[in-house]
């Protein structure tokens, strides 16, 4: 079971959370300006990368707040968690090890 770092509560077991998929995909300001393909891209298409991935998490059985976290999908280690609206942090270790 993962230990998920909630930026508000600290590390808590995975069962308290709901993962909301890839982070940093903002709802388009004017959906009507998008053609069908672009809208489908926003709605359905997500990256599924091997390595560091930014994800949305909801501490549903805790503080009830959404946040973003960087998780390595290979090792499952969390590298950072940060509040909604903040940019994805740069990782000093990312790339070189």
């Amino acid at each position, binding site marked *: *079971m993962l230990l998920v770092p909630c930026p508000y509560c600290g590390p808590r077991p995975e069962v308290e959370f*709901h993962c*909301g998929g890839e982070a940093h995909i903002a*709802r388009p300001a004017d*959906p*009507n300006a998008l053609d069908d393909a672009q*809208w489908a891209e926003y*709605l359905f298409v997500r990256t599924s990368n091997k390595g560091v991935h930014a994800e949305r998490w909801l501490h549903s059985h805790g503080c009830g707040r959404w946040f973003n976290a960087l998780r390595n999908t290979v090792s*499952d280690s969390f590298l950072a968690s940060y509040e*909604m609206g903040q940019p994805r942090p740069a990782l000093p270790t990312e790339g070189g090890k």
Partner: protein
Amino acid sequence: MAQSNRLPSGGRIDRAKPLAFTFNGKSVDGFAGDTVASALLANGIRLVGRSFKYHRPRGILTHGSDEPNALLKVDRGPGRADPNNRATVIEAVGGLKLSSQNHWPSLEHDIGAVNDRLSPVLVAGFYYKTFMWPRSFWDKLYEPKIRAAAGLGVAPDVPDADRYVHRNAHCDVLVVGAGPAGLAAALAASENGRRVILADEQAEMGGSLLAERTATIDGVSAAQWVAHALTTLAGRANVTLLPRTTAFGYYNHNHVVLTERVTDHLERPDPKLPRERLWQVRPAEVVIATGAHERPLSFADNDRPGIMLAESVRTYINRYGVAPGRRIVFATNGASAYAAAADAKAAGLDVTIVDTRPESAIGPEKALAAGIEILAGHTVVGSTGGKGLTGLIVAPFTAGKGVGARRTLPCDCAGISGGWTPSVHLFSQSRGKLIFRADIDAFVPGISVQKERSAGACKGTYGLSAILAEGWAAGSGAAGADGSRLFAAAPATPTGFAPARVLPTDDDPKKVRAFLDFQNDVTAKDIRLAVREGFESVEHVKRYTTNGMASDQGKTSNMAALGLLSEILEKPIPQVGTTTFRPPYTPVTFGAIIGSARGQLFDPIRTAPLHEWAVEHGAKFENVSLWRRAWYFPKAGEDMHAAVARECKAVRESVGIFDASTLGKIEVKGPDAAEFLNRIYPNAWLKLEPGKCRYGLMLKEDGFIFDDGVVARLAPDLFHVTTTTGGAPRVLAHMEDYLQTEWPDLNVFATSTTEEWAVIALQGPKARDVLQPFVTGIDLAGEAFPHMAVRVGEICGVPTRLMRVSFTGEMGFEINVPADHARAVWEALYDYGQRFGITPYGTEAMHVLRAERGFIIVGQETDGTVTPEDLGLGGMVSKVKRDFVGKRSLARPDMALADRKQLVGLASLDGRTVLDEGAQIVADPAQAVPMTMLGHVTSSYLSPSLGHPIALALVAGGRTRMGETLHVTTPAGFTTVKVTAPVFVDPEGKRVNGVQTEGALHA
């Protein structure tokens, strides 16, 4: 039964505490400290089971949790019978009833043993090859037969009478295994106050040291050293000792799960104790000290009862004071069996050593075998005996020159040793990378991924001094101290072996049955066959032959199979790879996993504030998500149909009272509340005046309906949102998601108030008459309080949010009152309502009433692919709003296709067939199969108001099919229906205003 094979002295058993249990109905004597296996051996019992596939007679192979053969059913009384327990780990307890498995009619005479003669047919992949054709044989013949023959033991058929609990724990260092490495690690780790948990699967801690006869550590005997170490650890408040506790799973982020057997070893356990305790431990650091498993040797008929691992022979003699045989032949390819042979000789037994290595390759271990005959450079080509070993057939051999003349060594026990395999299971489960060490012919822990370290034999370190030092360093390092200590252990541990896959033989290798996996009956021949048939990947060979897939997970067989595969493929072992280790390390009871989550505690049951009233008034209940809701209120002699008909009639003709408290309620508050609802719902909210309600469909961004409910505006900045009973959490989560992540600029709070407010629905022409006397501060007159209005006032002196809404089609009120006052208000209304024949109704009548009026239920008329337009509710979707959740998706061309499934009504042409919900609909029942399905029935009832069946359905292009005849599946074939509008009662909606539409009701 006499303990004919109990040695006169020695062992760690308590001879002052005799006990007796039964095996297949016969009494077996033993002592406290025995395992069932050691007691059976002490009583001269060698045959303990039949093998899975060939039903071959089998005995006890090991002395620990790696046992593949000796699987017994344990019966501790009603609800406490359990199959497939390893005799080598069950502690002997007085009164136990044990029986062997997998035979009929008895262990000695087993009909299934005919499989053994059929073995040329029952080769690897037999099931895959045989049970493929013809297809029609599968259901009737193959599957039932395979099921009957599959699996060992018989599952219990009564509920488990025991109790199981879960416990969470944190510690600085978890040490798994209390052998020499684990004890040293725990001592070092706990020196400076770090919280340490030491878990060991055995009843007694000490591991291999408990079977040492001559070893000394720092000048004291191994047994004394263990006792001193345990006293020290027990004296430290920061140490938790968990014997009888197996760490079976190593999961992400240092999450290790242990199962502790609390009472199985007690003859009369305290009923307050659970049988087992599951520990979820999150240690900062883990020390894995799980030891190593001895490998058997592979030769023809290497599975006869009496053949066991050499170290197991040693353990039964030294630890349990049992002679597994009187004449013992040790067959080995390495050094460690010499210590076993020496101990057997010291116990007064007749001992011979057969060593596959040439004389010149035997190392210093030879000194241990003083006075013992050693047949060096010999192979084992077979064994004799039926249900018990009588001899080992050996022959000299020279590499490249072949096998010489055979001779039979008479014996009643053989101790075989094919070398050692470090127990890397937990390390591998932690996702650590294994590396292969050719010098010890084994995989050992390589690169760590989690915060763990291995020490001792599980890391390939076999000398006792080195094991202790490594354990100490690991424990100290895990505690952050990086200390080291040297231990003086004597004599030197005999180590090293010459890997042997299958022993050389002069028999036709195609005919030799040399077992690798004893539990799944996999032979060396099966591995060769798998390779011949094209399976080369180790994972494929494993699945095709089932090697290593039994409940012992191949602890004694994986390396043998892997080594053989590498030989056949002529590839080095690292290139062949190894199979993946997965939890659990040893079998875990379902009870331990489930813990207290059974019966009433399986899932929480939610009851609304009026639940007790419904119970007292004889309601039948149904489950709606976690809620228990009153389903109908039968009177004496009524079935459900009669009760629902009466309840519906009361609502249509007078007044019904209904507990709607389970409806989800969310209070949406803040200066931007209206703007928020305007974005999250497809209809318009900005202009809704305070005091008014509006029905809202909620869409997801994909344009499909996911919930619905009435929303009341209480003030410019305050909305009372209702949701479906099951949808409340997901609607709140949906709102929160948008508020927190997409529109954090909106100043809005969404709060669940479902349990704050009880909701009493009064529905029917007399609803207002019942309500009137109790309400203060609200004018209930029609013009003052029209349909879809909301008022705040008091009822029976308590605050209420009173809504004039209807889910039945009748004039209706939903009375929100604080939950604590619900029963008082309900009872006041119910008492006063008697003069109008007020009738409590349940969810079934509610469903019928709303279907008659054509109101949808989310999840029944919708399935996640339905739009408002599909339901004929397109008018609710704002055409003028620039944006709302789901708007862009509704503009996709597919959402406007004419053949989308649309909501319609169906009338059974025969006037009496009540359709099945979910039944498929076709245009032409004579068309060829597979037919074109037009849609399905979503709701179907016998309408009490109309006296005939009604149904709602989603049908392709449904609204263009009005009046068409279609065909619906029933269990007896197709029935014919006519497509109608999806409203059956009061299509003009007059009755909510109290207008009686008698004609429309009985059309």
